[in-house]
Structure formats: structure tokens, C-alpha cells
């Protein structure tokens, strides 16, 4: 049974239910407690040991139904109303030839029409052929063949040929047809296994690729997938960092610590200890260039930041091309995707003017920037040979906890042409090249590590 359970866990993981080893062991213990006779009981017990959220339960149910489906061989069974055709030899005759018991076995099984035995043979054959290792669609044929061979296909074919040679044409014809039907069964079985094991493999592969490709080159049809990916990454970061947020409880006497500390003073309450925890309220001011090539990156950065509201309670977001606009309220009223799209539509026109945008940022937000604020600027620093606004940025830098500049261009392109990265970068604590979701995640993690 443990082999079956291992396979089932594999299938569960493939359908995106996270199962740890400890939970697998729980499942074994639960199964030992409930036994195997009762299907609903097994299902409930496994579900409680393995699927730990409503979503997981849904996926578990689907996976369970697939995996432990009652596999019927109806096609083989009702192909022939079992009336022995006249002229056929009495069925107590041993399979002709009888070379290789396996071969005779398969033919015998086919002729006897014993569904359960055939099903068992199929399962054994599949195990022998390692069907549970199937990965790709194109492997179906190969695994079908291997399963059939493990069931004794070759011997059965030889036996049929011998039947034909012996003149039992009718019997051979029927056996051949059953063999074809069996092949169909095996194909169906292999396909079911493949679906079970690889349901999400394609998506996973795609997600891994998408995390690494430059955002500017991502195709529009992938945006939906990438948004899901951003949310997944954000969720991971939230889980990682939310534990560090502390709650302050001021003015509450910590009796325990007070007493312990005052034992040396004869138990007189001399030195009071208060329950107090430090509270950190990180603030982020994000300023994004939303023109042209930077747009793709800024879109995901904003999406990322707004997915993190659980750990980043205060975010102010600004977008600019030639003038600056605050989009914080947009994000509060619309979903992140709609908000980003609207911001790009409304403010994404015109050539970038860093001097003006940064001066406006200074005017609007400088009062709000203090020693807890992280200022994130996302832009390619190409100022069209105008004022790069480094003086404004320097004044912001003096106030803020830190300024991080994210540039979607690779480092080799910086400071070429109208790129003012050197002058602007001098007013930042860090400058990073930020081109893909993976890099974006690294940057946001870094912010959280020090800001939360």
C-alpha cells in the first residue's frame, strides 16, 4: 500500500497541493487507523491528513477521484456476448502452444473475459513499465508499448499466430480483436496517469521561464500568468516577513520580569519593567517611469508592492513621464492590474523629463519622507539631454532612510547617450539593474529585510 500512497502523494504534488514528508507520514498513520475497506473513509482520512486549506481540498478531491477511479474494462467485457461460437473447441483445452506461461496467461485472460484479473494484470504491467515516471505527452506510445509487453503481448501474438496456423481462424480473429481493445484500454490508462502526474508541469515550466526573461520582452498573452506569479511571489514574501512585525503594548507592567529583576532588592518593586515591543512602520514611496520600455517593468513593480500591503502598510505610488502624478488612490479603488493599466493610459504620454518629475516629487512628497521611508525610483535615467534632477534627488536622499534606483537597462547601457545614471546614482544608496521578475523579487526582498 505504501507504494500506492507514494504514487498518490506524487500525483497530489503534481496537482499543486503542498504535501510535506511529515504529512505523508500522518497519512500513513491515518490509513493504518481507518483501513482500506471503505472508500469514503479513506478519502476523508487522507483529505484531513493531507489537504490543509479549502483550495487544497478541492484539488485533493479531484486528484483522489482520478487516482482511485474505478477502472472498468467495459469495452473488452461487453464486446462479445459470451456465447461460444459453434465449432469452437471446448474451453477446457489448454492455450495452444503454451510456450511461455505469461503469453498463455494474457491470451487466457482475454478469452476468459475476467475483468478484475485483466485489470490487475494491467496495473502490474504498468508498474513494471514504470508508467508513474511518465513526463511528456510524446512518451505515451512508448509507455503503452512497454506496459503491453510487460503483460505478455509478444507471447499472446505468437499464440494467436499459432492458432491461425492451426486453422482456428474464428478464435484467432476474436482474440485479435480483444487484443486491439486491450491496447486501447492501456492507452487510456497511460493517458490518465500522465494527466495525473503532469497536470501542472507545463505551467510550472512556463512560470520558471517567465520569472527569468526580461520583462520588456514579455508577451501580452503571458501577462495574466505573470500577474499570478507576482502574487505567488508576494505571498511567499509576506509569509516570510510578516512574522517580524511587532506589536507595541505600551504602559503594561510586565509583572514577571519585574519580580525577577527585583529579587536582588529583597523583593521590593524597585526597578519596573514594562511590556513594550518596538513597532516598525516601514514606508515606501515608489516613483515609476511609465513611458515606453520601462512601463512593463513598472507595471510589475507596482503590482508587486501592492500585493505586499499586508507587510507594507504604507505605500505611496507616483508615476511620471513628463509630469508627475500620484496614483495611490487609484490602487485603493481599483484592482492592481486595472490601476496600473489606467495609470499607463493616463500618464504614459510624452517624453520623460526627470528634472521636472523629481522636482515635483520633492514638492509633493518631501514632507512625508522621513527616516523610515524607502524611496524606490524605477526608470532608465534617460533624460533626453535635459536636467536630470539630481539636485532634487539629493535633497530627498538626505531626508529618506534610503533611496534605491532600479534601472531596467543592463548595466553596460548605463551612462551611454543621454543616460544620466552616474549623476543620479550618486544621490542613491543603491542602484540595481532590474529586468526580470526574479530580479524584482530579489530587490523587494531586500527592501523587506531591512525595512520591516
Amino acid at each position, binding site marked *: 500500500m505504501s507504494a500506492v500512497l507514494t504514487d498518490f502523494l506524487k500525483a497530489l504534488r503534481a496537482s499543486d497541493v*503542498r504535501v*510535506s514528508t*511529515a*504529512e505523508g507520514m*500522518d497519512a500513513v*498513520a*491515518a490509513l493504518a*487507523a*481507518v*483501513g482500506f*475497506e*471503505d472508500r*469514503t*473513509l479513506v478519502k*476523508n*482520512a487522507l*483529505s*484531513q*491528513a493531507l*489537504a*490543509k*486549506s*479549502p483550495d487544497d*481540498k478541492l484539488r485533493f478531491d479531484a486528484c483522489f477521484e482520478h487516482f482511485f477511479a474505478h477502472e472498468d474494462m467495459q469495452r473488452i467485457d461487453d464486446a462479445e456476448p459470451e456465447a461460444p461460437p459453434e465449432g469452437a473447441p471446448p474451453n477446457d483445452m489448454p492455450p495452444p502452444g503454451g510456450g511461455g506461461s505469461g503469453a498463455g496467461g494474457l491470451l487466457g485472460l482475454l478469452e476468459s473475459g475476467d475483468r478484475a484479473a485483466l485489470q490487475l494484470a494491467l496495473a502490474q504491467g504498468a508498474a513494471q513499465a514504470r508508467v508513474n515516471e511518465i513526463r511528456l505527452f510524446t512518451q505515451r506510445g512508448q509507455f503503452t508499448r512497454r506496459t503491453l509487453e510487460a503483460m505478455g503481448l509478444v507471447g499472446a501474438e505468437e499464440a494467436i499466430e499459432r492458432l491461425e496456423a492451426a486453422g482456428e481462424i474464428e478464435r484467432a480473429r476474436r482474440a485479435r480483436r480483444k487484443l486491439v481493445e486491450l491496447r486501447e484500454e492501456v492507452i487510456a490508462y497511460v493517458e490518465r496517469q500522465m494527466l495525473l502526474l503532469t497536470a501542472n508541469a507545463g505551467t510550472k515550466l512556463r512560470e520558471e521561464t517567465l520569472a527569468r526573461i526580461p520583462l520588456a520582452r514579455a508577451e501580452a498573452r503571458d501577462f495574466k500568468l505573470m500577474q499570478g506569479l507576482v502574487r505567488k511571489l508576494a505571498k511567499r514574501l509576506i*509569509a516570510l516577513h*510578516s*512574522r517580524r512585525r511587532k*506589536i507595541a*503594548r505600551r504602559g503594561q507592567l510586565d*509583572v*514577571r520580569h519585574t*519580580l525577577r529583576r527585583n*529579587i536582588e532588592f*529583597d*523583593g521590593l518593586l524597585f526597578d519596573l519593567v514594562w511590556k513594550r515591543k518596538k513597532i516598525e512602520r516601514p514606508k515606501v514611496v515608489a516613483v515609476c517611469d511609465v513611458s515606453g520600455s520601462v512601463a512593463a517593468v513598472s507595471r510589475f513593480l507596482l503590482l508587486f508592492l501592492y500585493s505586499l500591503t499586508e507587510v507594507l502598510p504604507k505605500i505611496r505610488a507616483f508615476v511620471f513621464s513628463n509630469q508627475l502624478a500620484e496614483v495611490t488612490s487609484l490602487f485603493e479603488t481599483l484592482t492592481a492590474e486595472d490601476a496600473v493599466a489606467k495609470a499607463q493610459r493616463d500618464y504614459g504620454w510624452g517624453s520623460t523629463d526627470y528634472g521636472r518629475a523629481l522636482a515635483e516629487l520633492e514638492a509633493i512628497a518631501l514632507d512625508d519622507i522621513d527616516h523610515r521611508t524607502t524611496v524606490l525610483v524605477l526608470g532608465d535615467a534617460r533624460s533626453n539631454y535635459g536636467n536630470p534632477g539630481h539636485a532634487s534627488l539629493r535633497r530627498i536622499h538626505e531626508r529618506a532612510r534610503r533611496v534605491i534606483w532600479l534601472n531596467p537597462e543592463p548595466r553596460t547601457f548605463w551612462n551611454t547617450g543621454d543616460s544620466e545614471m552616474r549623476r543620479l546614482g550618486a544621490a542613491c544608496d543603491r542602484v540595481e539593474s532590474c529586468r526580470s521578475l526574479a530580479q524584482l523579487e530579489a530587490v523587494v526582498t531586500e527592501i523587506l529585510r531591512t525595512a520591516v
Partner: protein
Amino acid sequence: MHPESGLIRLGFQRAHEKGPVVPTNKLPPEIGARAAIEDIKAGFDAAGYVCSEAIATAVFLAVRLGKPVLIEGPPGVGKTELARATSTWLEKPLIRLQCYEGLDEAKALYEWKYGKQLLYTQVLKDKLGDLMEGAKGLKESIARLHEFDDTFFNEEFLEPRPLLKALWAKDGAVLLIDEIDKSDQEFEAFLLEMLQDYQISIPELGTISARIPPVCFLTSNNTRELGDALKRRCLHLYIPYPDAALERRIIERRVPELCAELNRELVAFVQGLRAIDLKKVPAISETIDWARALVLLHANTLDVELVRTTLNVLLKFQDDIENVDGELYALTSAARKAR
């Protein structure tokens, strides 16, 4: 203070690894799973709790495997009630810990009896002279002092809170940690030791293990995502809104005065109501309240006017009541057909 000096081990080894948690005449180990579950269903029915197959399985596994059960589901489907019914069925006391933001170990686990400890120091001061009589020099006095046990941080001065009470319970207990999602994440982490090994560490005393591991239930309304570490240690039971048949049986059990026809109408109505997009979908507890109200009103059948006047028992938001108002006729006539 020597770190080991005050260490007392109150419990035995991890008892839950050896079989059923609570020594009970219920669920003897030789009885099969199917029979045990039927047993649980019948026992719970007697305790006034109608449980589905999944719930009975969860209780069975909790008792057999000695693992805590995390119960999730919308409010009002009987999560807390399940723990209460289990306690009635097992004939063990129910110890309840209600979680809230700011709950800490002093309120959940133990507190020192500070007043007593202060008195003790006073007494000690008075007696110190007698004890030290005849001792020569500081060294000898200290040596003599060490002969005494550390009585200051001692079991005597420990004020048990729910978690410790559950560990100390003589014949085992049912521990309910209610609305764990309302507590802080630090508290959740603190619970992990308790849930895994049924033991807790008190810095001054050492590790205290359960005399008899309690049957643990945790409930959550999912106001925040619980940590994976906590989920991994628990069996997970999701209680959804019941289907019509189960809900009818629950009403039958809880409001026996209600006639069967009206029961069928009422359940059909509530089931219909749940399909509508509402702020707060009526749960079983609301259905029971409504059934009781209808009994009080001597109602025999549902009609639109009756429903309209009593709807505030089912729906708790004015918005919801207004939203549903237009559909009342359709809902009521559909419910009538179920009669």
C-alpha cells in the same frame, strides 16, 4: 539559580505515541474503523450534535492518532460546538481558550502567584536567622542554603491557565483553542511545541509534559492565513454549510417541536438563500434560531409575510435584507414545493 535545580518532570513520556490519547471506554482499539465511526455518530447524536461522515472521521482520527484537529469553515457551522459535543461524548472536561489579539502566555499557559511569592520571601527573611544558626562564615551559610530545594519557582506558586490545565488534567481533557486566527503570530509559534509533543517549556521549571495528552481542537475563521508549521501539525477538517438532508436532521435534533413539513420548507428556503450573493450568509446557528422563532410564532407553513417579518433572525445586515426582499416570493414558493 542552577538551571537544573528546579526542574521537575510532571508527566510521563509522550503518551500519545502509544495509542489512543485519552483513556476512554469509547473507541477500544480492537473495534474496526467503520464501527467506530458509526459509534461516534450515535454518541454525538445523543449529545445533540448531528455530524457528517467527514466530521466523525476527524474525531476518530484525533482520538486514535492523538493529533490536534484544525477546524475551518464559515462562522456558525458548529466548529466550537463540535468540541463541546466531543467533551460530552468522551465524558472529559472541556477546557476552552479563547484567542484574541494580544493573548500571551501569561494568560494562556501559566502565571506565577506573585502575592504568594512575596509573602514567601517575607517568611524566608524571618526564618533565615534560624536556618543559618551555627554556620561559620559566608561559605558555610551558602552551602547550607543550597541544601534546600528551590522553592521560589515551584509548582506551588504556579497558577495554571487553560493550556497548563489541559496538560495537568488527571483523566485527560478536551482542549478547545478557539479562533486561533485572532491571535498573534508569536502565539501561534508558541503553540507548536504544545501541539506536537503535548508539552510546554517553562523557563524556571523545565519541560512539562501532559499527564494524558488532551484531545485538541483548534478553530479558525480564516481572518488571516495560518502558518504552514501549525497546519502541518494538525489534521485539517473543513466544515462547509451542510446539505439539505443534514441540515434537516440537525434542525430535527435541535428543534424537535418543529413539524417535519415546516422543517423541509424552512431548510429549502435557507438553502435557496445561501445561493444568493450576500454579505453574511446564514449559517446553521441562524437556521436553528429561525426554526425556534417559527415555533414560537406557531407557524405551520411559510408565507411571504411571515418570512418578511422574521427575516432579521436569518440575515444580520440591513443591506442583505433589502437585497433579498425582491426575491422573497420566488424563494418562498420554491421552498413550499419542498414540503
